[in-house]
C-alpha cells in the first residue's frame, strides 16, 4: 500500500526509505494474506531489473517468499504468479545479474513453475505467460552450470520442481505448495503442452541433477542439496525412483576421506556421509517393501563401518551405538508387546468327531474331558463374556480360523469317505463329459462347495452323539439379570453341627504348632501384647479369648436381641460359639491335663476377667468362671494321684477360690493315698493365699470332721493354724469366728 503509492515518486525517495516502506508493506501482507495479490502487483514496478540493487535483492527475496507462502492456496497463488512472471523473467535474464538476486529469483521461479503449468493446462489461450515461463526455464537451465554455488543450489531446486511437475504421479501425496502437480494433469491434446516432450525433458533434467552424484562430486553443498530434495521424487514419482536409488547407491560419500584430513574435509566428509545415510534410511523407512531394500540396508551398514574407521577417535562409541540401533532398533524404545501367544490348533485326526471335539482347542486331556454342559447356562454365559472381553483379538481370530479349517477338512474327508463307500451315482445331468467313473486319477476337489455356515448347520442337524449343551442357536443373545439361587433352608441340627465343626477347626493349628520352648522364652514383661508371638501360646490365648469374650455382651438374656427365638426349635440345641469352644477347650485340656494345666489356668483367668466385666456392666449375662472351675476340678480329680502336685499349683494360681471349689478336695480324702495331697494343697493355700485362708481352714476342719483317715494330719494343721478348734469341737462348741484367730497368729 505504502509501496504502491511510492511507486511513481521513486526518484524522490532514498533507497533506504523505499526499503523501509517495502518492509512495512511486507508486514501488512504477513499479517493479512488477503493483501498479497494487491501488494505483490504493486511492488513489481519498483523492483524491476532497472531498479537499485538493494531494491532488486529485496524484491527477489520477497517474490520468493510470497510465491512459496503456505498461507495461500494454489488457486489464490495462480493470479499472483502469472502477474509476476514478466518481472521475474526480467530479473533472471538481466545480464550480469547479482548473485543474491539470481538465487532468490530462481527460487521464486521454482515455486512459480508448477503454478504456472497448472494455469496453462486450464487456460491454454494465455500463451504469453507460458512464453515467459519457458524463457525463464531455458535461462535457468542455461546459467545452471556456470553459476556460483548459491545460484546453482536454486537451479537444482528449480530442476527438481520441473521434474516433479513433468512426471507421472502415483497420487500418494496431496500436499500444499504444488507438490501434487504432475504430468497426470496434462491432457494429451493440449495445444501448448506436449506431455511426451515434457516427460522427456524431465528425464533429462533428472539426469542432470543426478550428475553431481554420478561424478562422485565432493562439493558438499551441491550434493547435500541434491540428496535432500530427492525424497519427494522417490515417494511420488515411481518413474524416477529406480534411477535415483541406483545413482545414490553408486555414490561414495567417503571419497574425500582419501585426501589429507583437514578440519574442513572432516566437516565435508561427515556431512556427505550422514546426508546420504539419512536419505537412504528415510527411503527404507517410508517404503520397507522396496525391492532394493536389501541393497540399501547393506549400503547403510557399509557406510557405518567405513565411517567408524575414518573417524575412529570419536566415532568408535557412536558407531557401535548406531550399529546396534540399526540392527536392533532403538534400544530406548524397545517394543514390549511380545509376539502372538503361541496358540497351536492341532488338526483333527481321522474318524468321527463329536461337535465338542471339533471346538476343543486345548491339548490338556483333563480340560478336554471337562463337560461344559454341567455348567449352568447363566454361569457359562458369564464366563464367556469375561473371556471374550479379556481375549486378544488375534488369538480369537487364530482360533476361529483354526476351527474353520477343521470343519473344512472334516467336510472334505466326509466327501472322500462318501465317495469311497457309495460308488458314485453319477448324475447324468451334471457329470462332466468324458469323466470315466473309475478313473483312478480322479482327485476329489478338496475345497468345500458349501460355506462354513452350511457345514455347521449340517453338523447341527446330525444326530448328536452326546447331549448338546443348552445351545439354543435362535435364542436372543441378551443376558437376563443373573440371580444366585437361594441357599437351601438350614436345619437347626445341621446348623449346630456346622458351627461345632467350625469351632473345632479353630483347634486345628494346635496340633501343627510346636510346643513353645519354655527355656528360651524371654520374659516379655508386663507390657507384652498377648498373642503377638505367633506360636502355640499365642494361638491358645486367642482360643481362650474367643471362648470367653467373642460373644460377650450378646448373651444378655434380657437385652431383647432374640426374644422371638426363645423356645424355638433353634434355641434349645444351640450352644453359643463361646460355649462350643469352651466345651472343646475343656476336652482339650483333659486329654492331657497334667501338661495342660497352664492352659486351664489361663482360661480360667480369662473367664474370671470376663465375669468381672460382665458384673461391672451390670448386665445379667451368665457368669462362667465358677462353673468352668468346678467342672475342670471335677474333671481331673477323678484321675489324680498322690504325686500330682499340679493340683496345688492349679488351685494356687486360678484367680478365685470358693467354698464349693475347695469342697471338691474333700473327695480326695476318701482315698488314703491322696489325703496328703489334698491337705498339703490346703495348707499351701492357708500359708500363701491369705484371702482364702478361712475358706481353706474351714475345709480342713470339715475334712477333720468327716474323714477319719485324714484326721491326724488335719488335726496337725488345725492345731497350728486354728488353735483351740479341736478342743472346741471336742467340747461341742464351735469357734465363733476363725477370722480373729487367724489374725491373732
Amino acid at each position, binding site marked *: 500500500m505504502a509501496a504502491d503509492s511510492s511507486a511513481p515518486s521513486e526518484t524522490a*525517495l*532514498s*533507497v*533506504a*526509505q523505499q*526499503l523501509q516502506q517495502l518492509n512495512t508493506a511486507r*508486514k501488512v501482507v*504477513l*499479517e493479512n494474506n488477503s493483501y498479497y495479490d494487491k501488494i505483490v502487483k504493486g511492488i513489481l514496478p519498483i523492483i524491476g531489473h532497472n531498479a*537499485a*540493487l*538493494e531494491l532488486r*535483492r*529485496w524484491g527477489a527475496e520477497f517474490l*520468493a*517468499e510470497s510465491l*512459496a*507462502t*503456505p*498461507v495461500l492456496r494454489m488457486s489464490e497463488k495462480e493470479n499472483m504468479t502469472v502477474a509476476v512472471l514478466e518481472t521475474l523473467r526480467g530479473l533472471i535474464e538481466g545480464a*550480469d*545479474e*547479482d*548473485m*543474491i538476486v539470481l538465487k532468490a529469483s530462481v*527460487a521464486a521461479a521454482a515455486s512459480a513453475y508448477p503454478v504456472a503449468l497448472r494455469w496453462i493446462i486450464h487456460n491454454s489461450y494465455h500463451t504469453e505467460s507460458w512464453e515467459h515461463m519457458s524463457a525463464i526455464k531455458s535461462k535457468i537451465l542455461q546459467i545452471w552450470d556456470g*553459476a*556460483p*554455488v*548459491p545460484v546453482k*543450489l536454486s537451479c537444482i*531446486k*528449480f530442476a*527438481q520442481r520441473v521434474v516433479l511437475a513433468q512426471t507421472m504421479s502415483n497420487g500418494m501425496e496431496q*500436499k*500444499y*505448495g*504444488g*507438490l501434487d502437480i504432475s504430468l497426470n494433469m496434462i491432457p494429451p491434446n493440449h495445444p501448448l503442452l506436449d506431455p511426451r516432450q515434457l516427460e522427456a525433458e524431465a528425464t533429462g533434467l533428472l539426469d542432470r541433477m543426478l550428475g553431481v552424484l554420478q561424478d562422485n562430486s565432493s562439493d558438499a*553443498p551441491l550434493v*547435500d*542439496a541434491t540428496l*535432500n*530434495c530427492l*525424497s*519427494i521424487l522417490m515417494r*511420488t514419482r515411481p518413474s524416477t525412483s529406480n534411477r535415483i536409488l541406483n545413482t545414490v547407491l553408486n555414490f561414495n560419500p567417503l571419497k574425500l576421506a582419501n585426501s589429507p584430513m*583437514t*578440519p*574442513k574435509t*572432516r*566437516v*565435508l566428509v*561427515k*556431512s556427505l556421509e*550422514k546426508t546420504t545415510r*539419512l536419505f537412504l534410511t*528415510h527411503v527404507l*523407512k517410508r517404503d520397507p517393501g522396496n525391492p532394493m531394500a536389501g541393497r540399501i540396508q547393506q549400503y547403510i551398514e557399509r557406510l557405518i563401518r567405513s565411517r567408524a574407521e575414518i573417524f575412529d577417535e*570419536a566415532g568408535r562409541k557412536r558407531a557401535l551405538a548406531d550399529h546396534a540401533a540399526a540392527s536392533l532398533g532403538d534400544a530406548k524404545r524397545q517394543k514390549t508387546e511380545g509376539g502372538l501367544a503361541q496358540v497351536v490348533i492341532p488338526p483333527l485326526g481321522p474318524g468321527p468327531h463329536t461337535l465338542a471335539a471339533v471346538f476343543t482347542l486345548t491339548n490338556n486331556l483333563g480340560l478336554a474331558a471337562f463337560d461344559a454342559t454341567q455348567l449352568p447356562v447363566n454361569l457359562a454365559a458369564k464366563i464367556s463374556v469375561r473371556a471374550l472381553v479379556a481375549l486378544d483379538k488375534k488369538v480369537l481370530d487364530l482360533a476361529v480360523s483354526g476351527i474353520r479349517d477343521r470343519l473344512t477338512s472334516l467336510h472334505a474327508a466326509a466327501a472322500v469317505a462318501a465317495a469311497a463307500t457309495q460308488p458314485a451315482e453319477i448324475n447324468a445331468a451334471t457329470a462332466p463329459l468324458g469323466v470315466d467313473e473309475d478313473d483312478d486319477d480322479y482327485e476329489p476337489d478338496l475345497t468345500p462347495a458349501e460355506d462354513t455356515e452350511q457345514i455347521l448347520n449340517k453338523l447341527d442337524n446330525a444326530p448328536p452323539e452326546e447331549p448338546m449343551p443348552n445351545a439354543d442357536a435362535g435364542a436372543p443373545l441378551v443376558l437376563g439379570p443373573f440371580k444366585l439361587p437361594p441357599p437351601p433352608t438350614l436345619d437347626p441340627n445341621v446348623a449346630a453341627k456346622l458351627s461345632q465343626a467350625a469351632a473345632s477347626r479353630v483347634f486345628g493349628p494346635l496340633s501343627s504348632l510346636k510346643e513353645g520352648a519354655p527355656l528360651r522364652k524371654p520374659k516379655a514383661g508386663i507390657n507384652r501384647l498377648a498373642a503377638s508371638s505367633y506360636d502355640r501360646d499365642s494361638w491358645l490365648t486367642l482360643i481362650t479369648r474367643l471362648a470367653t469374650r467373642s460373644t460377650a455382651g450378646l448373651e444378655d438374656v434380657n437385652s431383647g436381641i432374640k426374644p422371638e427365638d426363645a423356645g424355638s426349635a433353634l434355641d434349645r440345641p444351640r450352644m453359643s460359639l463361646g460355649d462350643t469352644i469352651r466345651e472343646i477347650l475343656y476336652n482339650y485340656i483333659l486329654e492331657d491335663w497334667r501338661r495342660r494345666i497352664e492352659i486351664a489356668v489361663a482360661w480360667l483367668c480369662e473367664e474370671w476377667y470376663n465375669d468381672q466385666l460382665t458384673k461391672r456392666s451390670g448386665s445379667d449375662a451368665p457368669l462362667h468362671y465358677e462353673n468352668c472351675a468346678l467342672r475342670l476340678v471335677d474333671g481331673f480329680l477323678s484321675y489324680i494321684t498322690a504325686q500330682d502336685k499340679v493340683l496345688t499349683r492349679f488351685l494356687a494360681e486360678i484367680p478365685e477360690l470358693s467354698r464349693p471349689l475347695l469342697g471338691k478336695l474333700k473327695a480326695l480324702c476318701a482315698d488314703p493315698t491322696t489325703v496328703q495331697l489334698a491337705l498339703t494343697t490346703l495348707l499351701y493355700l492357708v500359708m500363701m493365699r491369705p484371702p482364702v485362708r478361712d475358706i481353706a481352714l474351714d475345709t480342713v476342719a470339715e475334712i477333720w470332721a468327716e474323714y477319719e483317715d485324714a484326721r491326724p494330719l488335719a488335726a496337725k494343721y488345725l492345731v497350728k493354724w486354728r488353735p483351740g478348734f479341736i478342743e472346741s469341737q471336742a467340747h461341742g462348741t464351735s469357734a465363733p469366728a476363725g477370722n480373729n484367730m487367724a489374725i491373732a497368729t
Partner: protein
Amino acid sequence: MDPASGSEGSSAPAQNGQPEDGSGFKLKFCTVCASNQNRSMEGHLRLAQANFPVISFGTGSLVRLPGPTVTQPNVYKFNETSYDSIYRELEAKDPRLYRANGLLNMLGRNRLIKWGPERWQDWNVGMPRVKHEKDKGSVGMEGGVPDVVITCEERCWDAVVDDLLNRGSPLNRAVHVINIDIKDNHQDASIGGGAIVDLADSLNKAAMEEREKVGAAAFDAGGAASRASFDERVPEVLAEWQQRWPDLPSTWTLSWF
C-alpha cells in the same frame, strides 16, 4: 534516518538496528533440542541477546522434565502448555526439589522468552509469525523461515533432516542444518549457548561479506575461496569454529524447506 538521498548500497549507515538493512544484515536462526526447554532455549536467549532473529523448537513427542525419580518424569504436551503453567505446577508440587535441580530457574527464564514449548514436526514452515512480537528474537522472524537451524543433539539433527525429507521441500528455500552436541544439563547448555552465538556470529560475518559483493564481480570470480558465497563457506566456517570448540562435535548439511 537521514533524509539525504542518492547514497547507494554499501554507504548505508551500519548500526541502525534494522535487521533488514543491508549493512545490518542478520541471518535468521532456529534452535532445536528434544523438549524445547534447556539447550534450545539457552541458545534462543543468547542469540536473541545478540540481536539475531531466532525461534526454537523441540523434536520429542512430548516435553519431558525430570521428576522426583528417574521413572517419574514430568510430561507435558507441546504447543498446548505454557512455560508459566509448568512453572506454577512444579512450584506447587515440590518447590524445594525443583528449585534445587534448577528447573524453576530454567522455566522462569523460558517464560520470559516465549509462551511455551513448540514442536518441530508440528511447525508450519513459512507461516508468518506476526503474533509473536513479545517473543525474544522475534524481530526479523516475521516471515517464519530461518536461514540456519542449529540442533543440540545428533538425534534431533536426524529428526529435523528426516522431517524435512518428509515435507518434500515445498518452499524451495535452502536451509543449513547444523548439529552441535551439547549435553543436557544447565552448565553444558550455558557453554553451548556461548558456542552457538560464536557460530552465529561467524556465519553472519560470512553472509554479510557475501552481500557486500555486488554484481558481476562475484559471478565471474566464483572459484576463488576468499570470494566464495555464504552457502559454500558454511562448512569452512564450521570447521574453524570446531577448532575453537573441540569438545562440541558438530554435523552439517544443506537441506530445503
